[in-house]
């Protein structure tokens, strides 16, 4: 990726108002998740006996209402966002590291290394991901760490494929040849020359992979095999909300809206990034 391509992409992106709005929203949400709970009056496990299952905007300072145990919904949702985002980020990071190194090595080395490496990816790809994640939680216990490992264990596959494709193409470029002639070892070439030039697609797919990770984690937490009470995740908040939705619909609406907003923004941003870096005909 040449410098000018970056600049073109950045310009195209900055002009896309919707994408910029999404980016700004995400930043705001992330900030609220990190700093919000400390700025608000209530703690996430604090029970307010006088305002159990209260709708939003009622007295008591509970801006978005409370759940059936009297805990402030806004704070819990922000906490849930923190947990979900945290797990997703960590898992995506893991996927990134594994996927990029795997794919870059396979694409650059070609031949048998490539064939073997990608065969492994193909085989894993064919396995039903959700179910193995579930097995992992059964085996290793439920909780954030297991979820993280489980998501990361499957998330790197797509990244590896993309990166491998890019590396295959990159291999033919002149500067790679120059590096080889200059006597650089394979590992050095991969880390110093191949990987930095893959950053574009990597960023795109990382941005698109995050909402996937959030969704998997929320899915599991919703079913009860992910993040456990009293720890809050958007998933189990939604589950609680679903149980109470007839009498207290805000319990479902608030975390659901938060989740959908985050996922939508990431998806949209990722799409726009992808279009900016490689304009097809959308």
């Amino acid at each position, binding site marked *: 990726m040449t410098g000018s391509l970056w600049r073109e992409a950045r310009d195209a992106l900055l002009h896309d108002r919707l994408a910029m709005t999404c980016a700004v929203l995400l930043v705001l949400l992330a900030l609220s998740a990190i700093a919000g709970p400390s700025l608000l009056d209530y703690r996430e496990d604090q029970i307010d006996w006088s305002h159990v299952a209260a709708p939003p905007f009622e007295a008591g300072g509970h801006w978005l209402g409370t759940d059936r145990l009297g805990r402030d919904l806004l704070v819990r949702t922000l906490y849930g966002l923190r947990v979900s985002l945290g797990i997703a980020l960590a898992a995506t990071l893991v996927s990134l590291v594994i996927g990029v190194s795997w794919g870059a090595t396979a694409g650059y080395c070609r031949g048998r290394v490539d064939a073997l490496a990608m065969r492994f990816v193909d085989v894993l790809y*064919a*396995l*039903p991901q959700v179910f193995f994640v579930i097995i992992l939680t059964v*085996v290793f216990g439920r909780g954030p760490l297991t979820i993280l490992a489980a998501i990361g264990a499957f998330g790197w596959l797509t990244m590896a494929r993309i990166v491998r494709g890019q590396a295959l193409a990159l291999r033919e470029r002149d500067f790679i040849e120059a590096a080889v002639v200059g006597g650089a070892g394979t590992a050095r070439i991969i880390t110093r020359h191949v990987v930095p030039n893959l950053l574009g697609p990597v960023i795109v797919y990382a941005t698109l992979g995050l909402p996937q990770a959030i969704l998997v984690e*929320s*899915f599991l937490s*919703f079913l009860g095999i992910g993040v456990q009470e009293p720890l809050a995740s958007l998933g189990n908040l939604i589950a609680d909300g*679903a149980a109470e939705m007839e009498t207290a619909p805000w319990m479902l609406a608030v975390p659901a809206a938060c989740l959908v907003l985050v996922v939508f923004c990431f998806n949209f941003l990722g799409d726009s990034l992808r279009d900016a870096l490689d304009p097809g005909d959308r």
Partner: protein
Amino acid sequence: MVTIAFVLRRLLGAIPTLALVVALAFLLMRLAPGGPFDEEQALPPEIRANLEAAYGLDLPMHVQFGRYVRGLLQGDFGPSFKFRDFTVGELIASGLPVSLALGVAAMLLALALGVPAGSLAALARGQALDRTVMAFAVAGISIPVFVVAPLLALVFGVWLGWLPVAGWEPGRISDMALPVAALALPLVAFIARLMRGSLLEVLRAPWIRAARARGLPERTVILRHALPAALLPVVSYAGPAAASVLAGSLVVETLFGLPGMGRHLVQGALNRDYTLVMGMVIVYAALMIALNLAADLAYAWLDPRIGVERRR
């Protein structure tokens, strides 16, 4: 082109995958720290030993695996550790028809809605119809099943009272309506997007222009020349689609209280019921592999160039 050789090749290719799933599931299960009886109230050691012997848990790993596989081949998935009165096989058999009906209905609905929606959006490119359909599509893929399902239940079940939100009587369509709709919605969105992109690309192909140049009416060009080619990516997507439907069915069955396999799987996961979970995973995996196979065959049937041995 679909030849016997092609079908056989694909079938043979599927077997190792299935074997791998079984092996992996087994391995993971047996690697678990602690055993399935840990959560019982404190058992005296002799009773625990007896229980473990009864379930064969004291035998070496490869012997256990051998016994398990032999059992599998005879259709025996072992006993459920938690539901003592039932074997896993029985639990699967009771839940499978429900889950299959749910899944198949959802996929058919998704195709029936998604393909036309995406095609119309492509044909009306840039106009209001296109933008509306695509806006819905983006929303659809951003809203996960476990949000859609409760929302649908809330709106159509509770507020409007049109459809029931729980219970399952075999054959009653209204019982199925909400679960199937909830399951199908994210899929409709994805398929619509896929179809639109695919059709737009096909319409740019030179042979479409050539078909028009022959004087064929536009309707024929779209229906018999463009659409079959545009359907290919959608058929390819059948595999991942099945995976997402299967995953979604876990949510939908739990939420709407449907007596399908999904609910058993979730219960098994919550109870750490190893044999149940393993059995379920294997059946689900087999279903997915079968569907992938069918999709492969459909693809080869649609595109005669596939399946032909090509010299590199």
